[in-house]
């Protein structure tokens, strides 16, 4: 399909937690085509490079996309300052999304911190057949737990300090879950170390696994070769590109 670039109205803006913003954008042509796991590339006024943000929700009826992002630096700060009713310059939908199995398969989504939002749309596909294992620093940092519940997902909330849900890392929770119940697929997004452990677990339990990766980007469409990530296919290592070959990769392909 053709890529869309344009100015799209920000129709709803919420502050979910400290420095974390939730945008709903009206962009019917994009919403129609967008897939769970893809991302949008947003222009921050005054910066040369756009900022990639994963799609958190797609509402095809309403023609809206939802993104949730954290202020990490000047660019995301600028974007977070956009007000409801104003326009957002966006290229989308970009990249390769998650592989969706039949709705009655058992899925586990695992997200850590700001890696949680990309998990919401894929979890919604599986409804009560998906478990969402989501981890945060503490109770104040928890986001989207209610949204997973609205999806009918089973939510396993973890915090580092135990101030909400269970104390500990998502990887521990994942291990317990896999001990208790089998799954057909695992989807994950979060820090590299977390992804590494999850991939190890997926291998151990022989479960298909897909992870969403991050890399610094320029074009976002596969032209500049800036967002390289080392991958392996048929025993050969090579640089794939997060914006085009990803951000979602099969766990067997990635080298973290």
């Amino acid at each position: 399909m053709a890529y869309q670039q344009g100015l799209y109205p920000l129709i709803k803006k919420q502050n979910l937690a400290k420095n974390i913003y939730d945008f709903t954008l009206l962009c019917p042509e994009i919403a129609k085509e967008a897939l769970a796991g893809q991302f949008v590339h947003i222009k921050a006024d005054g910066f040369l490079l756009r900022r990639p943000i994963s799609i958190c929700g797609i509402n095809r009826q309403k023609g809206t996309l939802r993104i949730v992002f954290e202020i990490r630096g000047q660019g995301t700060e600028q974007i977070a300052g956009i007000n409801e009713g104003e326009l957002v310059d966006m290229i989308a939908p970009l990249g390769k999304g998650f592989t969706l199995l039949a709705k009655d398969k058992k899925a586990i989504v695992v997200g850590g911190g700001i890696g949680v939002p990309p998990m919401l749309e894929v979890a919604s596909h599986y409804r009560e057949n998906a478990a969402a294992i989501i981890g945060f620093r503490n109770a104040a940092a928890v986001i989207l737990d209610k949204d997973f519940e609205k999806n009918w997902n089973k939510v396993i909330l973890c915090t580092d300090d135990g101030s909400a849900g269970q104390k500990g890392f998502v990887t521990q929770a994942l291990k317990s879950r896999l001990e208790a119940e089998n799954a057909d697929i695992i989807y994950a997004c979060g820090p590299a170390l977390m992804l590494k452990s999850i991939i190890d677990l997926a291998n151990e339990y022989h479960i298909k696994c897909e992870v969403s990766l991050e890399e610094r980007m320029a074009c976002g469409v596969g032209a500049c070769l800036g967002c390289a990530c080392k991958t392996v296919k048929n025993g050969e290592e090579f640089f794939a590109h997060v914006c085009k070959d990803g951000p979602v990769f099969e766990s067997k392909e990635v080298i973290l």
Partner: protein
Amino acid sequence: MANLSVNIAGVEFKNPVIPASGTFGNGREYEKFYPLHLLGGISVKGMTLNPKDGNPPPRIAETPAGMLNSVGLQNPGVDYFIQNELPNLENKGTVIIANVAGSTVEDCITIAQKLDDTCVDMLELNISCPNVKEGGVAFGVSCQSAAGITQAVRKATKKPLMVKLSPNVTDIASIARAVEDAGADAVSLINTVLGMRIDIKNRRPILKNNMGGLSGPAVFPVAVRMVWQVANAVNIPVVGMGGISKWEDAVEMMMAGATAVQVGAAIFSNPYCPVEIIDGLNNYLDDSHIADVNELIGCVKPW
């Protein structure tokens, strides 16, 4: 409507706006935004003789009004280009410029020979890539090596030969003269300016390659200066680039002496940038009652 077409070393461009090498892939991605026939030409991603992995990531860092890249010429090699990319570009109705970036003189000769029987319209010999250890900028920083490789490639091909110069030199005009004397049919400039950024949190360079090439609006005044110096030093056409992001920049670059312009990093910000520049140029010429874009070339009158 004014005449927008320009001629560089016998090659006719319908307009003087060309996406810069390495910023437009081989056109496939931006074809999803607009048809390629709108463009004066395309300078494709730099190619080496054999496939090249490029540098490890991160390869991109942002800077004030600019960016660094350390892609390091990742590409599938000239044969792959000819077999799998060129067919898609052929007959798209735009000039095809092959960016040749061999790591040795011999490689460059072989690449040029392989391209000689293809539909490629022009070669752009990249002696200025700052992101590779061999070849690249090593050729571009001395008159002697720049002239040597130019002469060798000139002999190896029937295609018009443009040589792409590095800004990381004390005296770019003398390098331009050296490649002109060695047989270059045109020069293009500037490639990226060597730069560095450090992540102060983890005390490591942002780029895994430590250093990278600066491009984008930040370098525009440097590029205009160099294009002006080079245009005053040589008699072959100059293709100007470096930081162009709007039609006014293209006009400024042409007034400095460029026959055509290339647009790079600005495309990342706005994919439509090259076509908007063409539209803007067109309107500007009409509004200013300038019948031919060629009138702009080098028209700046120094004080």
